[in-house]
């Protein structure tokens, strides 16, 4: 939709990134060769189960990997620098917050309970823009209004415990805005919130992306949530992007069996009395070397070659890439499951009365 207006301009370029962790003497291969381009001004959603590596991937953009993790190979190009080569904390301080900011999952734990929220936003303003005193106060109030908090002059003097969960998440977003960063990473910002509040926060993030011309990377496990917010969607499984495409391509023309499985397990598509589609088995253990396609053992459509050789990316369209042998011209033709056809049917019936 919005691609036509923008000139393709890559802000962040990830190439063949491998991240490993050392745990109890063993090596865990968390990110297995991810290649990803993030365009300026787009909002990209990364979707996957817990443990698929979506959070680890974005943490490498900010140098926030745990002590026992490291970038094994590959590069992350951002504004002419290779973030993967950064060694010292001093390097990272030029990027973290200033260029790339993050909104975390749980607003109950990501704010400092001992400081007023005005103070916490002011901290970011002072550090990144050198604003102090009345100028900072005024800017804080503007930002609070932007994130939908009324009476900013009174509210900025309050402490986090005086805010509800949704309001706290707005404060966290306000801090990220105050950093004036180019990229905003939202790591499951609505998982801890109610459905009604979730819808409001999603709308807020979308409005702010427009207003501040941000590039957003949105992480979630729920494909149902991202239809609203994402221009493009990347589906991750076992530390690898298995399918990437525009929002419409992923929802209306998914090609990877894992994307099919994720979509058909949404309760929105279920029918009462029928069993909901559930993915069998568990994700692979990343301590072990993975041979072939990581999803093959859980994939009802798996071919013999899936157990032998890792599939390359096949291009469905210039924007739609899929890592699955099913798209090889020699592979048998497989139809996606029936329940996916309900996406349009059921979505419509949900809404026609409201």
């Amino acid at each position, binding site marked *: 939709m919005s691609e036509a207006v923008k000139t393709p301009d890559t802000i962040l370029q990830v190439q063949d990134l491998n991240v490993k962790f050392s745990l109890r003497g063993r090596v865990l291969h968390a990110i297995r060769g991810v290649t990803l381009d993030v365009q300026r001004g787009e909002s990209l959603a990364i979707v996957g189960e817990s443990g698929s590596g979506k959070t680890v991937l974005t943490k490498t953009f900010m140098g926030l990997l745990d002590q026992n993790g490291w970038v094994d190979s590959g590069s992350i190009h951002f504004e002419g620098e290779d973030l993967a080569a950064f060694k010292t904390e001093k390097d990272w301080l030029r990027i973290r917050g200033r260029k790339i900011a993050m909104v975390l999952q749980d607003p109950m734990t990501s704010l400092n309970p001992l400081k007023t929220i005005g103070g916490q936003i002011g901290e970011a303003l002072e550090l990144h823009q050198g604003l102090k005193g009345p100028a900072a106060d005024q800017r804080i109030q503007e930002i609070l209004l932007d994130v939908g908090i009324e009476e900013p002059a009174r509210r900025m003097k309050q402490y986090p415990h005086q805010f509800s969960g949704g309001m706290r998440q707005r404060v966290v977003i306000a801090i990220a805005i105050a950093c004036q960063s180019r990229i905003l990473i939202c790591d499951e910002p609505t998982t801890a919130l109610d459905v009604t509040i979730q819808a409001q926060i999603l709308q807020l993030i979308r409005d702010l992306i427009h207003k501040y011309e941000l590039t957003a990377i949105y992480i979630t496990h729920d494909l*149902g949530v991202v*239809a609203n917010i994402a221009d493009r969607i990347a589906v991750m499984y076992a530390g690898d992007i298995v399918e990437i495409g525009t929002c419409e391509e992923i929802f209306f023309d998914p090609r990877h069996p894992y994307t099919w499985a994720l979509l058909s*397990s949404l309760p929105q598509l279920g029918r009462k009395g029928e069993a909901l589609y559930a993915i069998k088995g568990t994700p692979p253990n990343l301590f072990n070397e993975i041979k072939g396609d990581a999803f093959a053992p859980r994939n009802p459509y798996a071919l013999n070659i899936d157990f032998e050789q890792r599939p390359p990316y096949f291009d469905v369209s210039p924007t739609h890439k899929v890592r699955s042998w099913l798209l090889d011209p020699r592979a048998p033709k497989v139809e996606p499951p029936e329940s996916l056809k309900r996406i349009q049917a059921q979505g419509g019936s949900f809404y026609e009365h409201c």
Partner: protein
Amino acid sequence: MQHEGRELLLQVKDLEVRFGTKRHPFIAVQHVNFDIYKGETFGLVGESGSGKTTIGRAIIRINPTSAGDIIFKGEKINGPISKELDRRVTQQIQMIFQDPMASLNERAKVDYIVSEGLINVAKDMPRPQREKSVAQALADVGLLPEFASRFPHEFSGGQRQRIGIARSLIMEPEFIIADEPISALDVSIRAQVLNLLSHLQRKKGLTYLFIAHDLSVMRFICDRIAVIHKGQIVEMSETEKLFANPLHPYTQALLSAIPLPDPLLERNKKLIIYDPACHDYAVDKPRWQEIEPGHFVLANEQEMEGHREQLATSCRISS
């Protein structure tokens, strides 16, 4: 739908729960009325702080009630009751909790976690028999019997929630209160747990009170749904009727907040935000009224007019 001939399992009449002190009371829940029939799944939906969990906890006797009656199988179970009845209620009503990461004792083995209820209620049950029922409960939820000797941290979120379900099943309850059993789980695991719950219902003839904040899950699992806002039920109906004709503005707001897995619809969707000030209740007081068979709504006379009109139009469209 007609409920004649169906056995009434639980009745909640004019329930009120107060917290705080006498001088500064906080009324968490008031004027709550609903019936639950045997074998059905009754959904209670509302945002956090609306009192839906409080109702569940009042039924299972964790929160004391300040007014009203809770009647289970013809007997009043709130307030002071006899030891013998208390024991029976403990066995027949069980609860499944929200967060499987927090609701299991980290220091106990699965064997103990699952059998703790039996140890409390059936003290003289011989050990081999107890072990057998643990194995059976684990098998019912799709776990292997050898898991009994492991600790909770060795399991994934979905498996932990299964342990929580096994713990309630071992008491052979008739009625299970599921308090947001899938909110803390991943989407793919949600499907497994929902399927398990409906499978167990069919197999064992269970009755569920399903508490959640997400209507999309409700539609999949519930027979009837009550929508609760600020401690009061504002609308109650069979699931499909509620989705077809949401009457109360709060229900409409909840429905509009469901994220749709469809980018075209989602981008054009208008989010309804519920503002309690939209009601004019100064003179015309709201009452709890039945607008069509089995469909109740909290509204005053003026609003009822509008609701009736809406129902009539939608009937004309569908016929």
